[in-house]
């Protein structure tokens, strides 16, 4: 274990998240058993007020988780100097078997918590809180995710041994390997760009349709999911090459370093936010018929789709500017 301030901060964040997740799950069980919005009883009133607390706490944890995801990656990147053979976050995450699972779980928590918050926000605008049971069933599912994430992160930090020789990103993101990272790396740059472009068109088209028709947002969410996969593939396969001005450097983490102007953050933040918003829109569209939400939902959906489209647009702009300013010529 390396006693470092960012690690201490991350562990603190994880501990707080765990406490909140556990409490919310326990409270979720009580909601599932005792929720009856029509009742004017004292118990129901208390339950309602507690859902307010749960929303506040979960929102708090959500903000922490977003910041913690950034801090986790940033810190992994910084600690690379401590490990033999590591050059960026990949090396740090590869020091033991828990590094990458911890990252993936953190990302999963990010998406789950975003969806939960979107659900929560809409639910509280419906005069009979129509989604409350669903919301707290969701909390029951998210809690294990948060706990596992925190446990994996702890295992990762405890297992950081500086004398382990770890593998650098050049060994992981190379077409010569097996596995999904290698598959993504091995995708031909032109294919990846076409795929990304098509996914972008699909996002724009389904977004426009769902804005115009005020329905079919689930299609938009689907397009957003495809776009996410396409974007990650394209980043590994081709965009990174443009950033590094190097035809063989595929690492998606070195993008986050100062040498490259922190361009990784400009890519990942809008991409993740845009995907989460699109998925949120898709999720909400399932409740379009629910009585008390009928007045609230269309506006909320429109705002979500717009926000998501703006995020996707930002991502596209960053990609284009990276390609335009690069000295690397891949095509023609």
């Amino acid at each position, binding site marked *: 274990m390396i006693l470092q301030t960012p690690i201490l901060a991350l562990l603190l964040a994880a501990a707080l998240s765990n406490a909140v997740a556990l409490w919310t799950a326990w409270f979720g069980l009580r909601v599932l058993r005792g929720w009856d919005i029509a009742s*004017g009883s004292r118990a129901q*009133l208390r339950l309602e*007020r507690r859902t307010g607390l749960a929303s506040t706490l979960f929102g708090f944890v959500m903000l922490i988780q977003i910041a913690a995801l950034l801090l986790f990656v940033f810190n992994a990147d910084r600690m690379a100097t401590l490990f033999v053979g590591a050059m960026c976050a990949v090396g740090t995450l590869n020091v033991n078997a828990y590094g990458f699972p911890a990252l993936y779980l953190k990302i999963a928590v990010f998406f789950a918590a975003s969806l939960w918050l979107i659900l929560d926000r809409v639910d*509280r605008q419906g*005069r009979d809180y129509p989604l409350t049971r669903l919301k707290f069933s969701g909390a029951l599912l998210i809690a294990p995710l948060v706990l596992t994430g925190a446990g994996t992160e702890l295992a990762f930090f405890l297992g950081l041994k500086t004398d382990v020789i770890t593998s650098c990103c050049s060994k992981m993101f190379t077409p010569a390997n097996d596995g999904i990272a290698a598959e993504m790396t091995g995708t031909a740059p032109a294919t990846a760009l076409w795929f990304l472009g098509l996914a972008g068109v699909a996002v724009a088209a389904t977004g426009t349709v769902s804005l115009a028709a005020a329905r079919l947002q689930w299609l938009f969410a689907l397009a957003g999911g495809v776009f996410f996969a396409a974007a990650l593939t394209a980043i590994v396969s081709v965009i990174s090459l443009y950033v590094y001005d190097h035809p063989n450097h595929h690492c998606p983490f070195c993008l986050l370093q100062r040498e490259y102007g922190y361009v990784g953050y400009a890519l990942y933040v809008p991409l993740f936010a845009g995907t989460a918003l699109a998925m949120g829109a898709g999720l909400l569209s399932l409740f379009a018929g629910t009585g008390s939400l009928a007045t609230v939902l269309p506006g909320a959906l429109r705002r979500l789709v717009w926000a998501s489209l703006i995020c996707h647009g930002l991502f596209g702009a960053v990609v284009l500017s990276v390609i335009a300013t690069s000295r690397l010529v891949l095509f023609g």
Partner: protein
Amino acid sequence: MISLRSVTKLYNEGRPNELRALSDVSLEIGRDAVTVFKGPSGSGKTTLLSIVGCMARPTSGRVLVDGRMVSGLPETFLTEERRSTFGFVFQRFNLIRGLTVAENVALPAAPLGPDPRALAARIETRLEALDLADKADTPVEHLSGGEMQRAAIARALINDAPVLIADEPTANLDTDLTHRFLDIVADLRAEGRSVILSSHDPRIWQSDLVDRVVGMADGRLAEVAA
């Protein structure tokens, strides 16, 4: 129009000290009127006022405001209904000490996100109408009883609530100030607001201003006089 249908309110439900504050009260209160609930202390006046004013939810029964059911609403929405319809003047005024009159009057507007200059202008007008303009920047603990009540009335009306609810408004006032209060009620009525009072003060329910007196005893309506 506020309708109560078989409203019952229990406190400390299911505990040994359970208290039945209201039993099976049905009542309609019209707009553009001054209504007084009269009755001895402990008769349920205050509880009834808090249910009429959407401050508390009934244990059973229904409450409708202008035809909208509010009794099943979650607290947040009930608060929204209350904010847009009712202004409260409490028996002990409940001004917040340490703040000035103007700051106290501004409080109910805060959750609505007011424009500060427009709000300041509104407060000034309201305080002028109540002869409190020169006290705007005085901390409330330096006010006399009558001034405190007028500050509380200004606060109750700052969101332009159509209904003013006052609990025992004259309990702490001498005769002069009681008349002063009734003048204000007359003004409010002239502005087209309705006023709902609870009082065991005959000076109030014998006043010409009052359109309707509702008697209460032991949590039930006792007699209804016009």
